[in-house]
């Protein structure tokens, strides 16, 4: 649909210009199919909302000014307080708009459900995410490697994140790739996304979890498939293992400004973290 694409571009152009650098960090500058669809959905809703708010924004100043007390050239009907046509006008069209938006909302919520696997020819990259104080642990179960505060993904291939928390509730957001989901101890949530172009995108925790909260950011590095494979083998051979000592260091409360890479991961680490937090108090 090149026409629609053009319309979107035309609509988003002024925003891009005025939003300056800050908005480049957000969904406006989307870098994946999920965020792109979210942005398109936003533009559709925004256009509808112009028609919802427009009349109010026009009528309030116009009517207030026209019927100001000092203007003696207007009608004054102090006892007028009801009109069926106006009543129909203020109830029916808004109800119609909401019904229309409801259909859009229903289908968009299902198609953009974070649990819904992305359509693709290749199987998704599985990544297990553990929210810790104040860092993110990313486990690549199929590759047998893990990272802290760096999520490297291949461009074009869907990524399926399974999330849990080793501590309090947190929330993972990658604005340019789309989606946000809570990570809760003893439970697993899911987030499906993908990058459509190479780049470095900021991810973060948005749920306050203590004094290191503001530093709990990570970079999502999207690279071409070949570069991704090279990165995996480099980590597999070059890094240190995520053994007991390293794990206790990672799970302790701390801020880790530079990413860490681990060449091997204990089997079913993610599952054991999910199970452990429901068993007993960690105190």
């Amino acid at each position, binding site marked *: 649909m090149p026409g629609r694409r053009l319309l979107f571009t035309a609509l988003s152009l002024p925003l891009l210009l005025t*939003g*300056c650098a*800050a*908005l*480049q*960090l*957000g969904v406006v500058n989307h870098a994946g199919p999920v*965020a792109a*669809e*979210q942005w398109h959905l*936003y533009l559709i*809703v925004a256009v509808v909302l112009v028609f919802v*708010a427009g009349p*109010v924004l026009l*009528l*309030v100043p116009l009517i*207030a000014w026209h*019927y*100001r*007390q000092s203007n003696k050239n*207007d009608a*004054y009907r102090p006892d*007028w*307080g*009801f009109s069926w046509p106006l*009543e129909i*006008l*203020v109830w029916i069209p*808004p109800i119609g708009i*909401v019904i229309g*938006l409801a259909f859009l*909302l*229903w289908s968009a*919520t*299902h198609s953009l*459900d*974070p*649990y*819904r696997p992305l359509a693709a020819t290749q199987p998704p990259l599985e990544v297990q995410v553990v929210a810790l104080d104040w860092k993110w642990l990313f486990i690549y179960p199929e590759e047998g490697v893990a990272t802290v505060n760096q999520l490297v993904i291949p461009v074009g291939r869907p990524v399926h994140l399974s999330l849990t928390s080793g501590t309090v*509730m947190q*929330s993972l*957001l990658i*604005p340019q790739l789309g*989606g*946000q*989901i809570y990570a*809760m101890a*003893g*439970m697993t*949530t899911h987030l499906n996304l993908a990058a459509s172009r190479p780049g470095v995108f900021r991810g*973060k*925790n*948005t749920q*306050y*979890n203590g004094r290191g*909260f*503001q530093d709990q950011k990570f970079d999502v590095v999207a690279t071409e498939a070949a570069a991704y494979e090279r990165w995996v083998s480099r980590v597999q051979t070059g890094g240190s293992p995520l053994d007991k000592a390293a794990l206790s260091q990672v799970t302790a409360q701390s801020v880790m400004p530079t990413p860490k890479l681990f060449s091997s991961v204990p089997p079913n680490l993610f599952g054991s973290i999910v199970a452990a*937090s429901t068993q007993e*108090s*960690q105190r």
Partner: protein
Amino acid sequence: MSTPIWPAVLGRFEWRDLPLVRAWQQPTINELIGAGAGAIVIIGAVALVVLLTVTGRWRWLWSEWLTSLDHKKIGIMYVVIAFIMLSRALIEANLMRLQQASAIEAPGIVAPAHFAELFSTHGSIMIFFMAMPFLTGVMNYLVPLQIGARDVAFPLLNAIGLWLTGAGAALMMISLVIGRFSTGGWSGYPPYTEIEFNPGVGPDYWIWAVTLGSIASTIAGINIAVTIYKMRCPGMHLMRMQMFCWTSLCTAILMVFAMPPLTVATALLALDRYLGFHFFTNALGGNMMNYANLFWMFGHPEVYIVILPAFGIWSEVVSTFSSKELYGYVSLVIATMVIAALSFTVWLHHFFTMGQSPSINAAFGIATMAIGVPTGVKIYNWIWTMFRGEVRFTVPMLYALAFMMTFVLGGLTGIILAFPPLDYVVHNTTFLVAHFHNMLIPGTLYGMIAAYTFWFPKAFGFRLDEHWGRIACACWVIGFYLAFMPLYVLGAAGMARRTQAVMEPAYRPWLYAAELGAVILFCGLVALFVQLRVSIRSRDANRVAAGDPWDGRGLEWSVSAPPPEYNFAHLPHVEQRYAFYDDKRKHAPYARPPHYQAITMPKNSAVAPILGIAGAATSFALVWYMWWLAILGLLTIVATVITRSFARDIERVIPADEVARTNDAWLEAVALTRPVPRELETGRANQGLAKVRA
């Protein structure tokens, strides 16, 4: 210095719990700010005590105010609490914005833990100890006057609600002086607020302050609802009530049903923290999702609790200052009721990102959009009220116009957030912060300030200064746009809320603008205080003793300003909506009643102050594990309630001739008052008698 002092008496108190001691040991800017705040509270309290002692006002304060069961005085005291707490929370907001503006790739001035206390107290205060007391105070003051009643249904319960609110607010203030407040935000989500992760006193301060506030609001809701159901004067059918009474009724119903989930949530969290239960812990079967549901089952109706009274206020203000009947009374009543009912069906939109199925998210998203319809109807009804009217741009009307223009923008972003896929992108970011401030500042805060300006002459007998009122209004409006529009941009750029430091230099211009806006908002508050001071000084020139400075419609304008303790010398008998307005045009509203009768009013009671002080002491003791004081406080509460139930002599009779004397004197004064046309209502000619066109 880090061991408890006399644990049997002082519980877990240590010297380091005093911010002054912390600042002495570690004189950083961060600690000095904390110590300064504590010092302000102490100095303020001492100054108040000295002032009362020097002027010999203790007895007056006790008998005229603190023990009074007069709904009007209770209402005024609620508003006083609201203004004090508004001042503190607005200063905290300024500090947060200053921190963010100074912490772009830099540490800033406030440490992370302190910053977290700031956003937690700011939110908790603004909701529980600013918005709630303000609207409860306004309802308290107005509802009996508007329905033609001499008092509320439960005068003592009313005072108890006030004192419990005061106790909660006092606990918030004490947390500045002793210990630290919670860092868990105003919503206090576990497991972060569980003892495993936060063993300190902070979450306990939050739990007990909010518990006191929530019980007080439940009480207030019961009282207002019963008052409206049972105390209306003869002829005051439900469909003849002022719109403010309707919105108050809906608010009261919401309070009765929405506050208990909060009380339950905080009580369960307290059981977790004090007795090792596992309602919301990570381990042993606890589940924080239950807390999220309970909290927002309160939290969403709460949004409408704070907005509906303002909708009632706008209805009164727009109609009065357009010299015109409120458009679409019936449809406004229906819209209010629909909003009240729907408000219980949308709580899940506060956590679309918790992993539930898309069908559930979609259902709650659609319900959320549906609330927009009756809300939009209300806005249009106010527009049609101005249509073919004569609009006067007085201060309350300026707030009303700013509200309508601004609230619509908040509604738009609300619809955006109601779409789960769009919510995923901006949930927990400053976009959300901007959205709810966009609803609450124009909606609730402007509404409350408009009410304060509009009914102040009724309560105190003189008008507020118009000039400073306009300055304040300009500050609140300009400040709002500067402070919160940038937050929409920052949220769309992915800036998480509650962020103490920022790593993205691209955020800089927006954070600077927001900081400037916060300063202007603070100027708005200062302007309000200046306005009050100026108005008190020139009060003799601005008296409106006749009681009707704005050509009002409701019964509250038909009595003197300030009204007598019993409101109506002779209970009105109404035969239509806006009876007083019609009386002014067709009959003689200021006629002497054929005969006067003795009036029975409730006697002053020390029960509420005792319960409030005991409640505060018990809560404080629970925070600090001072078990002896907690038991003592609880025993005092139980003993007071039992003793009160035996009290027989609780009423006071005002003799008929005293009523006659007061009322006749007022009627004589009214007869000598020169009626003022609307063009001159903001000038000194306005003595509270409206000149009406036949």
